[in-house]
């Protein structure tokens, strides 16, 4: 029956993403450009439509303009549906007072009406800051076959890194026996990916319980999951293998972009699993007579007259003659001036790097230090931004 939805998704896109600094000053984290023509939220949204889930509520309260206008009517993701589709869900006033979202669980709690209106059997809970391709329908089928109350997607991480994650300890049938948030001595390496499927009736019950608990911080990881476990609910782990990356920091954002240049890590050429995005209508990119481009991604509307290697160049970006771009990310409509040198750097949307300016540099020793030029920032001719520096104001020549 068409009007009833079997499974809908709720996408938590409210995070301020303060660890991304100047990049999230004017937009929510899920709206950050990624991979040449995408924004982070394209990944969960495309995963949804490719998994047959056409009803997605996007919970947002922080700097929603860029995200809202990016999502628009949902058409790029084939979610401009008459029934279902993508809905932006901000906090609202009930009765006399309004209440901001105080935690992930509270955000879902405040939207119980939205979920009830769609009357689903199952609710898929997603984050807006992960890069991966995943068939949620397979996970849903396991959830149904297991008659689970909740199913949590887990990824095996290197044991030495396990203490940075929420770790799920499961028995041999995959039933979760214990959940430890960032354990000092992890018992397993199955890290929660922040992707949950709940049987809606059950989740609804626990959301209401949790809301009444004055000591709860209204968070899924801290409150709902432990409480359901304690109550002996049937919680299953779903093993995911494949590329998955949290891009919540400058370093991980840079790394995930660089990962796209490596073959076989994350295949975006997959006709059966397209990642959709909203792009401005621009001509194919142009590479000039004096340009060189190797081991890089380029997309529509960009113009390269300089020397680009090991980099990701977004739509509308322009690299002038003589400019050198290495191991860098040049975001939409950014301009790199003549003979400028950009290395191990992220240049934000619409930033202007002047002629002969120098942004970042190769690592002397140890990990690379990524330089960041914020969106709309102007770096004057001959100015210098040192490795690891983050510029949130215009940079004068030194």
């Amino acid at each position, binding site marked *: 029956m068409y009007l009833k939805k079997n499974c809908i998704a709720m996408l938590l896109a409210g995070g301020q993403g303060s660890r991304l600094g100047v990049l999230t000053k004017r937009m929510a984290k899920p709206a950050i450009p990624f*991979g040449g023509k995408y924004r982070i939220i394209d990944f969960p949204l495309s995963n949804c439509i490719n998994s047959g889930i056409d009803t997605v509520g996007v919970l947002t309260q922080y700097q929603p303009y860029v995200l809202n206008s990016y999502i628009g009517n949902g*058409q790029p993701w084939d979610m401009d549906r008459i029934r279902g589709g993508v809905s932006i869900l901000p906090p609202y006033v009930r009765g006399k007072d309004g209440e901001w979202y105080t935690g992930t669980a509270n955000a879902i709690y405040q939207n119980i009406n939205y979920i009830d209106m769609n009357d689903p059997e199952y609710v898929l809970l997603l984050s807006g800051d992960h890069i991966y391709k995943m068939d949620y329908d397979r996970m849903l089928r396991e959830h149904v076959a297991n008659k689970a109350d909740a199913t949590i997607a887990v990824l095996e991480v290197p044991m030495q890194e396990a203490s940075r994650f929420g770790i799920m300890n499961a028995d041999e049938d995959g039933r979760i026996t214990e959940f430890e948030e960032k354990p000092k001595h992890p018992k397993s390496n199955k890290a929660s990916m922040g992707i949950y499927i709940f049987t809606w009736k059950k989740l609804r019950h626990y959301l209401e319980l949790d809301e009444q608990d004055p000591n709860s911080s209204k968070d899924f990881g801290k409150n709902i999951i432990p409480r359901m476990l304690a109550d002996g609910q049937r919680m299953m782990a779903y093993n995911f293998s494949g590329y998955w990356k949290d891009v919540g920091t400058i370093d991980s954002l840079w790394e995930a972009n660089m990962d796209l240049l490596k073959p076989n890590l994350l295949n975006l050429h997959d006709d059966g699993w397209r*990642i959709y995005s909203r792009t401005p209508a*621009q*001509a194919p990119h142009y*590479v000039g007579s004096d340009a*060189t481009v190797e081991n890089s991604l380029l997309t529509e509307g960009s113009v390269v007259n300089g020397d680009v290697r090991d980099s990701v160049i977004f739509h509308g970006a322009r690299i002038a003659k003589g400019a050198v771009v290495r191991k860098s990310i040049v975001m939409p409509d950014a301009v790199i001036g003549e003979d400028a040198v950009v290395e191990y750097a992220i240049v934000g949307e619409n930033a202007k790097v002047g002629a002969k300016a120098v942004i970042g540099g190769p690592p002397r020793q140890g990990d690379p230090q990524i330089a960041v030029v914020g969106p709309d920032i102007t770096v004057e001719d001959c100015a210098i931004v040192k490795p690891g520096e983050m510029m949130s104001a215009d940079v004068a020549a030194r």
Partner: protein
Amino acid sequence: MNALAIIFAYANNDKLKELTEKRTPASVPIGGRYRVVDFALSNMINSNITKVGIITRNNYQSLMDHVGNGKEWDLSRKRDGLYILPPYAQYDSNMQEYGGWIDALSAAMTFIRRSREKYVVLTTGEYVCNIDYEEVLAQHEKSEADITCIYRRDDRGTTGDIAYTLEGDRITDVLLGAGVEGEQNMSMDMFIIERQMLENLVREAAMRGQKSLARDIIRRHLNTLKIFGYEFKGYARRVDSVQAYMQINMDMLQEDVREELFNNPNGRIYTKVRDEMPAQYLEGARVRNSLVADGCIIEGEVENCVLARGVRIGKGAKVSNSIILQKSEVLAEAHLEHVIVDKDAIVRTGRTLIGRENLPVLIGKGMVI
């Protein structure tokens, strides 16, 4: 804009050879990610014309596939929007193939008559240009013209083209058919006319068995109607021969042409979005003076080329002065000069194909060479 548009999207000739064997000229791929008709459709929406009929005749499946429900041009609407007007759809259509625009307009008359707009913009789907019809309409209204004919100054007229003689802005003669020499006022086959007047003129001409808008309506009424010219001064070329097709693609390598067509404050050129990933340049790629669409994977050398989406250029391949259409593959060590490779073709490892500037080699859709 208080106008509806009719786009004539069927072939009048086969000068595009194999390129139009399986499609109409309007749906020929161009500029790496477009179809020719994208220009006509985008010009309409950019001029705030939101009711557009496309007249088709045959061979139009690829056109229908491309324009789909019109959403990409924001022409998927409850009122108005995009209408495909195929032949034989009317209960009273007993005609054979359209003999000319007058036949085609007669068949589309129900569509035209049911509209509320005051004006009609008539155009072919074969022009590459970025034109603002609101400006044309402003002149049309200011001059109180009955018909405004859009032309360009050009010396590339060929047999069969139409040119106008003007006194001031008024058209005093229509030159038909003869190979026109020197710079002329070449018709762009674009007209603005009041809807009611069009209905009357077409009915009258059809009753007399007349076929041609230029010969039987424009020329016949030069003295009885106020027929004015509007000179379009921007870049405009018609995709009407393989040479023109090659040249237009090469023109797009020039920054000024690209800026005028694609970064025009008048509006963007929209097309069907295919959601390919960004183009991948691998180690060994050497690309110069080329337009490259998303989804390409390049390992070889490319110079003075237009590569459509999803093209692959293998290691050690050398491709120059060529157009490679979508999803075609040039395998390792192949060597192409002055070649047009249609969709889904494969040029085998080490193969060499060399055409000439005015006589490119044409490799058909899906061929393996």
